[in-house]
């Protein structure tokens, strides 16, 4: 009998590597966006409605903002998962909280797109 090769790694050095890497990559993207945003804030003078609107009409800014927000949501997902895994013991509650986090972040993703492209 040939055993089906299933990639099941409940423990070990590689468990969680993807989440760990995701956390770092998204962090770096957010650092860059934050610095760009600070630069924009310093270079622009007084913000009024017209300039605020114009900023969000700029496609590059929209794309960069959406990239930041996607990174933020993935980062938040990994972070929330880590915290829930550390402090919540009962399996049912843990599952419920993780589902709640996912639903919240998916909703935020849809909301973000609708804000940026409405």
């Amino acid at each position, binding site marked *: 009998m040939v055993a089906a090769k299933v990639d099941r790694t409940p423990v070990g050095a590689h468990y969680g590597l993807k989440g760990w890497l995701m956390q*770092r990559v998204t*962090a*770096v993207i957010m*650092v860059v966006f*934050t610095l760009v945003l600070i630069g924009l804030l310093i270079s622009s003078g007084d913000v*009024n*409605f017209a300039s*605020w*609107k114009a900023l*969000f009409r700029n496609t590059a800014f929209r794309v960069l903002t959406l990239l930041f927000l996607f990174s*933020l949501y993935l980062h*938040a997902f990994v*972070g*929330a998962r880590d*915290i829930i895994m550390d402090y919540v013991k009962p399996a049912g509650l843990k599952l419920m909280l993780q589902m709640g986090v996912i639903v919240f972040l998916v909703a*935020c993703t849809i*909301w*973000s797109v609708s*804000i940026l492209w409405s």
Partner: protein
Amino acid sequence: MSTAKAIVKKPRPKYYDLNLMNLPLAGLVSIFHRITGIILFLFFIPAALYITQSSLSSEFNFQHWKSIFAHPIVKLIIIGFIWAYVHHFCAGIRYLVMDMHIAMEKNKARISAQVVLIAGIVITAFIGWKIW
């Protein structure tokens, strides 16, 4: 092997030291990293999305939010959020640097933890002074 199952675990006394002031500095950076992460997740994300959407919807709403942000108590809350963001940011960079095996020794890690805690407060104070 089979006898191991029969051993009844004696309840051990637990001593949780929940006083944050007794944590080593790196521990303080770590727990604040978690707490600020939760704050940013629960409050900052929905608030930032809502305010951005509302302020873009009309000139009236934009002025409305501008007047809300001019309020001193709101400014204090904003400064609190800025500290959460700045601390999370600085502590995160400390981890990124340590991922590259830089400053891993106990002494250096302690200094970098100190730098993060102080930088969080100093940068927040500077931004707070700017927006006041």
